[in-house]
């Protein structure tokens, strides 16, 4: 069961309002803009966005046009959480002084995997520690796609990128994907969750929970990238589902330290079901696939233990 009351949900109850409108320049089949679009629907109009440099920024705001129907600010690559911190204290004091009308405004920082797990990790950690009431959304497409598919610390083991090319001495990305969720959880923040736009109701539900959190919230959203993953652009939703069904990207949440699986896809599909058709994994030998399969199962079992699932 993806969530206990799924029968209450249907596509027609998703808010009709669009805050990320059509006309942006995202690639065909981009699951990242879909993730952001769905998240903004869940957030609603009373939202301020601070965005890191990256795909979402670059596809949305070539001056003088904009994709955003919400107040939006982009400052730099590594500081979306710091800018959000500033918006938070600015609004707080102005509301306290009565210069801005008191109201609940969601402050939401959005960054890619590079802007979150690499260059923006420090400012994100600081914002969590200071306990600003804000939501950080990492839209993870598993490499620096905007600059031409270079590896990040969120690129999966073995994946081919332009800076982790397979070669005589290389089998692609030489390191394992950084676990951002654990890093977020280690800050003792009230809400942390993974999501994927292939599961839109789950994603929307989690954004709504993040809104209600009494402190910082972190959402890590896997965002299939046909351009960087070398996949067919009509299969983005399917690849998101395969990532979940193979246990490569489990859907779960951590509420006040308590882990809960959002979906138990057991029996897991073999990772080869997920890899098949992805150009970035095409070079992998059986030996490496076996290594990844074993690690995937181990991580899945560890997560089940954390979630109290037998």
């Amino acid at each position, binding site marked *: 069961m993806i969530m206990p009351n799924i029968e209450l949900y249907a596509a027609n109850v998703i808010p009709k309002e669009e805050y990320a409108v059509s006309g942006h320049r995202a690639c065909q089949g981009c699951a990242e803009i879909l993730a952001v679009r769905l998240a903004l629907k869940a957030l609603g*109009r009373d939202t301020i966005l601070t965005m890191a440099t990256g795909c979402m*920024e670059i596809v949305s705001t070539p001056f003088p*046009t904009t994709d955003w129907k919400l107040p939006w600010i982009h400052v730099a690559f590594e500081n979306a959480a710091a800018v959000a911190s500033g918006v938070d204290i*600015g609004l707080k004091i102005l509301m306290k002084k009565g210069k801005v009308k008191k109201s609940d405004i969601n402050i939401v920082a959005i960054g890619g995997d590079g802007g979150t797990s690499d260059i923006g990790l420090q400012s994100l950690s*600081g914002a969590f520690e200071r306990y600003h009431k804000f939501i950080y959304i990492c839209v993870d497409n598993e490499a620096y796609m905007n600059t031409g598919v270079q590896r990040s610390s969120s690129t999966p083991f073995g994946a081919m990128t332009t800076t982790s090319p397979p070669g005589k001495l290389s089998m692609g990305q030489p390191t394992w994907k950084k676990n951002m969720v654990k890093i977020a959880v280690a800050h003792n923040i009230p809400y942390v969750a993974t999501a994927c736009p292939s599961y839109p109701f789950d994603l929307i539900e989690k954004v709504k929970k993040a809104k209600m959190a009494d402190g910082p919230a972190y959402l890590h959203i896997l965002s299939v990238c046909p351009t960087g993953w070398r996949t067919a652009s009509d299969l983005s939703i399917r690849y998101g589902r395969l990532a979940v069904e193979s246990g490569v990207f489990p859907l779960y949440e951590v509420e006040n330290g308590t882990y809960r699986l959002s979906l138990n896809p057991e029996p897991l599909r073999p990772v080869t079901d997920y890899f098949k058709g992805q150009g970035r994994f095409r070079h992998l030998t059986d030996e490496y696939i076996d290594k990844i399969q074993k690690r995937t199962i181990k991580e899945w079992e560890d997560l089940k233990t954390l979630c109290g699932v037998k």
Partner: protein
Amino acid sequence: MNNKNKKGIEVSIALSESVKLCRFEAISAYPITPQTHIVEHLSELVAEGELAAEFITIESEHSALSACIGASAAGARTFTSTSSQGLELMHEILFIASGLRMPIVMAVANRALSAPLSIWNDHGDVMAARDAGWIQIFCENGQEAVDSIIIATRFAEDRRVLLPVMVNLDGFILSHVVEPIEFPAQESVDAFLPSYDPLYTLHPDRPLTMGAYALPELYTEARYAQENALINSKDVINEVMGEFGKKFGREYRVVESYNCEKADTVFVAMGSMNENIMTAIDELKSRGKEAGLVKIRLFRPFPSEELAEVLSGKKRIIVIDRAMPGGAMNGPVFSEISSLAKIRGLDAILSNFILGLGGRDVVPEAFIDIYNESMARTSTFVKAAKTNYRIVGVRE
């Protein structure tokens, strides 16, 4: 001024009191020597409820200025302070703060840059940030530091300006000394500096996009508009300084001079060493020699008209730099003055001396030696030397 109204107080503390008088609303800062007393006192003011501000002690200077942009974009009057390495860590964001036209005020306790690590004063930090599109003011003493914060906040937020400002004060040499300072009354500051009324803010009732990117068709125009705002800010700065003088009785100008009417030979300098130069000038006078001092209070936008006016007709111009040229032909202040001299056709012999690096003591006698050496010069170009500047007191 009546000395009775003055209070003996450390300049960093005094500057923080000025931040309070300005009713800053958001502060985001990271501690670094020698700026620490400023953030410490601000923390106390906020903790005691004397300053109604949100203060975040953030995890780096890069984030400090990033958060300032967020707070300023939300519409709050925003302050930060840093020094040296901290200013360089902010470097990327400096340009964005000015490009986004955020009227943030930042006090910079000037300090040398690593390596080798030095916590002591020079202008290496701010000179590396001189082209960041910020308005830059240099303070000579504590009273100037206090008044400059008030003046800077007023013109930064002026809708004809909307640019961030650095108020520079020499680390330790100025930031940590106790000086007699007069504080304006809160009511007078309130009357001079109304509550910040931002032009655009981030709010769901008026959604707008800040920080879009520009394609080659528009980048030049965007930067041109910003550059114009910076250049035109000088008139507003002059206007605000004039109004401050009328209201508070302390006159400030973007360029100030000491004993320049009679003297053919003038020093050009910035910051707290101006006081030592004036002492040297008085000593020279007692020996029957005339020298003047031209103080650059506003370094960006560069006050070329005002400088041309005061430097015109001078026979010798001695430019003092407190930063290494970094491979340039001369120190940064000299480079400005020499291009001004060429453009304005000033017929003077120019000389460039670099001193006071990394906290090396600067004494009035040094300027007497510099004066004597300059008087012996017959041309601006020094043929025999490898460089056209001299580093005073350097051991080879």
